[in-house]
């Protein structure tokens, strides 16, 4: 792929984004109605939030990672007023990173209508501050972080959808870019295959530890990362699904394992481990749905995310655009309004894997340059933040881990 450059947005912390968004964050379910009403009708405003009243270190790290994401230029945190998670603290961290930020408690402003009015006024002010300090800069593949997730997989995902993303990843990394792929519960059965991809012996040990943790976790909750739709689509075992999923990592060496909300340390290929670490509370499932995994990828600084779905899906994402890839030509035809890329043409022999990967890279460049992906244009902004526990990176004490 030839070099390519486009115009991005430079943040005060030195990061470069491909979108210039204002992020509304709510700190408990009770504030979600007002938060969404504040963002309603505002094209440059996205919403995320955490439903729980009791705070959780993992969820706070995730919200902070999204508040300071390179695609985000300003933040508005909205709380009800009773909850543990403090919107003022979220706004403070975002402000410190150079992003104009504000916050308020709904209880202090009278209720639903006045809360919405307060939020709308805050948005107007934040938008003006953001416009005044926005610096446009050239960006290229070296600046780009791309995430990859698969969901609704079928027998074509491992043959076409994931391999085309993998080949694109190879090209991106060869151009000096960064790529992150999910996730260890979909590598069950592949310990040796994975270890053989480690950049060095230390990374091999990291991969072993992550693998063993994922296996222990799945065994203890008696649930592997495979769904009825996967089986109906021809996948017979988690091992088969794993091998297909692993194909989206391409062939370059794995530089290391990062956990949710950790930023990609340097360019190259990274494995995202979103499996909970040992904890007295065994929080739910490691990846309860596709949206949760996509949020995890975005939390590592991914500017855009490739979502490979053989059976088709109708989700999108806030903060970073989602590009939907399917290896199933029938799915592409049936769900054309939602699917960005048809990798099924590889299986029909219309084009080679390399040709398709080049086209996918072209599409990634177009979306990075400002073209809306299909889910982005449709207005999909699904998010999912849950209670979970991971050991690293540690945040201050006093918060429910």
């Amino acid at each position, binding site marked *: 792929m030839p070099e390519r450059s486009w115009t991005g947005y430079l943040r005060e912390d030195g990061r470069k984004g491909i979108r210039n968004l204002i992020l509304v964050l709510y700190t408990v379910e009770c504030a979600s109605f007002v938060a969404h009403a504040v963002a309603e009708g505002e094209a440059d405003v996205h919403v995320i939030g955490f439903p729980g009243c009791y705070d959780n270190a993992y969820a706070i790290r995730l919200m902070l990672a999204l508040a300071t994401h390179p695609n985000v230029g300003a933040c508005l945190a909205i709380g009800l007023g009773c909850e543990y998670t403090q919107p003022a603290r979220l706004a403070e961290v975002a402000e410190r990173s150079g992003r104009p930020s504000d916050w308020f408690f709904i209880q202090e402003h009278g209720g639903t209508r006045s809360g919405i009015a307060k939020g709308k006024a805050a948005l107007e002010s934040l938008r003006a501050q953001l416009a005044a300090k926005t610096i446009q800069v050239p960006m290229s593949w070296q600046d780009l972080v791309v995430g990859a997730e698969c969901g609704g997989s079928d*027998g074509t995902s491992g*043959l076409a959808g994931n391999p085309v993303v993998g080949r694109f990843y190879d090209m991106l990394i060869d151009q000096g870019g960064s790529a992150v792929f999910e996730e260890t519960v979909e590598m069950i*059965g592949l310990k040796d295959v994975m270890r053989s991809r480690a950049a060095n012996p230390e990374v091999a040990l990291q991969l072993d530890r992550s693998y063993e943790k994922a296996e222990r976790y799945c065994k203890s909750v008696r649930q592997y990362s495979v769904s009825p739709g996967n089986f109906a689509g*021809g996948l017979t075992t988690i*091992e088969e699904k794993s091998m297909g999923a692993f194909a989206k990592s391409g062939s370059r060496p794995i530089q290391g394992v990062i956990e949710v909300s950790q930023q990609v340390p340097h360019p190259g290929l990274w494995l995202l481990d979103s499996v909970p670490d040992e904890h007295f509370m065994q929080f739910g499932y490691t990846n309860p749905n596709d949206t949760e995994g996509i949020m995890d990828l975005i939390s590592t600084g991914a500017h855009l995310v490739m979502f490979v779905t*053989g059976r088709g899906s109708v989700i999108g994402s806030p903060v970073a655009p989602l590009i939907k890839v399917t290896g199933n030509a*029938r799915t592409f035809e049936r769900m054309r309004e939602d699917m960005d890329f048809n990798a099924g043409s590889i299986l029909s022999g219309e084009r080679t894997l390399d040709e398709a990967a080049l086209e996918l890279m072209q599409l990634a460049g177009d979306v990075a340059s400002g073209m809306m992906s299909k889910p982005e244009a449709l207005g999909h902004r699904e998010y999912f933040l849950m209670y979970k526990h991971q050991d690293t990176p540690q945040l201050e004490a006093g918060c429910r881990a």
Partner: protein
Amino acid sequence: MKRCFQVHADDNVATLLEDAGPGDAAVLGAAPDTRVALLETIALGHKVCLRAASKGDLIVKYGVPIGVATQDVAVGAWVHLQNCSSRVDERSNHLDVRTGVAKDTAYA
């Protein structure tokens, strides 16, 4: 002719690129210019057996074991939950073979 794809030369299964069978299908991929006679209808994305497997034999795809045969499997047979099981995931032995829906969940 309908087509299926064998990823790795060690694989004893190939994945259907379209709904096919019963009857001959072309095998693409690791062993081009071969054919397999499907014994039954097999859907897009599902697997056909290329080499006869006995109960207990490994089922291999992508060059790695993806499961174990739970009964003898003839060449041309559909390889899925009814004759192949995961070596780690015990819950998938409780799924409906066609829809994949779990049969171990109580709704009442």
